[in-house]
């Protein structure tokens, strides 16, 4: 018995070594940095231990701005993208001819590089000396006044960021939901048909509960993904996100480490741990809610 357990550990050793080196150790390190005041990575010195870093970060207007941006992003994009993805999947599921073609088209954004997509969005939204951007042209066509979506008012920038995020995360959700819909046993629909079930009732009483585990999976991963947003904002607004007022929590962490105002691993660590605490809380809340509403 003992020999066997030794063997087991031996098999696990490579994975444990790698995870230990590159995940567990850095995590513990981050935790330690976040409590060390004024840690200097060059000289490996610090003044003292305490909650100073957290106090600083939580009072930093840039961090508060980043926190606000991230929360708005999460609250808008997660429900919207999941909802729209569900509508698209239902549409795809309902049609027969050309379904594969449409599926491919809807999946294309997933395999497109973030920055390339950013470029496209620039063309759509950016105001330059030569053009106001495609969207503004359309707005003007309909008699509206043009808006600077990239350097203009906050709501315009937030709109572009949300639009962009939804557009980027959509394909994966569509893919997951289409396969979830396809895996519902058609006998349930036949049974419902026998009983003259109305379409809306079929959807809410049969389809939705049947695919609820997948929807839940998408909501949880969507929350986590949106909280970790950073590259999307960079693709649209460039690297100086604080100046654009469009920073995210991850962007703040990055800036604290490497940005122009960087070089503060302690603050970065504290911010990262705050993000971790938020994501953990939200995920726990999600799990609690799902126990009531997700079947199986």
């Amino acid at each position, binding site marked *: 018995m003992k020999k066997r357990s030794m063997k087991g550990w031996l098999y696990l050793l490579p994975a444990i070594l790698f995870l230990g080196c590159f995940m567990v150790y850095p995590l513990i390190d981050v935790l330690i940095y976040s409590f060390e005041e004024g840690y200097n990575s060059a000289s490996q010195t610090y003044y003292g231990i305490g909650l100073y870093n957290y106090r600083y970060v939580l009072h930093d207007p840039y961090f508060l701005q980043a926190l606000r941006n991230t929360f708005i992003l999460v609250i808008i994009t997660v429900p919207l993208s999941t909802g729209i993805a569900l509508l698209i999947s239902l549409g795809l599921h309902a049609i027969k001819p050309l379904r594969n073609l449409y599926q491919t088209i809807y999946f294309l954004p997933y395999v497109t590089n973030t920055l390339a997509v950013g470029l496209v969005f620039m063309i759509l939204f950016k105001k330059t000396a030569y053009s106001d951007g495609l969207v503004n042209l359309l707005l003007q066509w309909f008699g509206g006044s043009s808006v600077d979506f990239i350097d203009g008012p906050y709501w315009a920038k937030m709109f572009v960021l949300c639009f962009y995020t939804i557009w980027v995360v959509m394909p994966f959700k569509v893919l997951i939901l289409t396969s979830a819909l396809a895996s519902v046993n058609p*006998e*349930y629909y036949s049974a419902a048909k*026998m*009983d*003259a*079930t*109305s379409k809306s009732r079929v959807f809410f009483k*049969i389809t939705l*509960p*049947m695919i609820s585990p997948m929807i839940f999976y998408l909501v949880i991963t969507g929350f986590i993904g949106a909280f970790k947003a950073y590259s999307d904002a960079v693709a649209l607004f460039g690297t100086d996100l604080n100046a654009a007022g469009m920073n995210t929590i991850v962007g703040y962490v990055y800036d604290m480490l490497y940005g122009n105002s960087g070089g503060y691993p302690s603050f970065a660590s504290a911010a990262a741990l705050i993000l971790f605490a938020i994501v953990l809380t939200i995920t726990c809340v999600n799990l609690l809610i799902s126990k009531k509403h997700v079947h199986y």
Partner: protein
Amino acid sequence: MKVVLQHLTKRFPSRTKKGDDVIAVNDFNFEIPSGKLIGLLGPSGCGKSTTLNLICGLEAPTEGSILFGEDDVTRLPPENRGVGLVFQNYALYPHLTVLDNILFPLQNLKGADKLTKPQMMEKAMQAAKLVQIDELLERKPSELSGGQQQRVAIARALVKMPRVLLLDEPLSNLDARLRLQTREEIRRIQQETGITTIFVTHDQDEAMSISDMIVVMKAGVMQQIGQPQDVYDDPINLFVATFLGTPPINVFDGCVKGGMLYVGEDPVMAVGGVADQQVSVGIRPEGFNLDPQGTFRSNLVRVEVMGRDTSVVSTHPASRNPFVRSIIRADNQVDRTKKTVCFSLMPNKVFLFDAQTDARIPFTWEAQK
């Protein structure tokens, strides 16, 4: 409610462009009397389930019509036909409790048929009591055994009081013991409600034991319809004869010459009214009598004693199956030392079929002694 099928035909278009259409159901004409339990019987892929789907309206027929009593329901959508369907895999909604599953069809009712909550509960409880699951109402389907799920499915189909109840392979997902029990149960429920019930099965035992009438099908064509015993005793062709009965009927190559039936080389019995020709001879296992002077001789392989009766396994050169199985009463002693075993045949257990068409050839015999 009697169910009448007239020239019912269902063709499925071929998958390839050049291929022929698949005819799943070919020109069905029969009438199912009101309040009876009917078994649709046939091997896999013979169109039984398609027939059921046509009756319940999940598939539309290519030709022909379906009548419930005097109503032509051919063009009616399934929900307006007043049928209850029990699916092979039950199709119980896994996220709903047993009670909610049974209530589901009632909650769909609209307009004048709309029921109040207490009315729905009353009907659901009635259905649940009928199939004896009223103790399990709060459970989810996954917490039930196969037999219990089956009952819930029947209750769900019955709760709207359908004119016709359809069961698709109702026993195929149950183990042998439960199968016996459940088929009695189906019989009881059918008789208590008096609803015309049609069930599909490939198991002839199942169909024979509980049906008032059986319909034997093969490759989309109805072969024979009748009371189980009549069909067994008087099969219309070789297919029906081989499909019904366990152990199955023994089939031999034979011929008729001058009013005498030959099985292989041996003359076995006199048959009247049959012209000289090659025939297929079917002899039911219970059609053999152990008889030292018997005309039917085969090579003894082994004797299986089953308690109630004895099964003699032998080989015969003209047999189409590797072994000939004869069932005789257990008080008969078979001399196991001898290589050959002799039987006399019961003429009413012997059937002749045309060697080409497999159609039954009637013959007359003289009662012995």
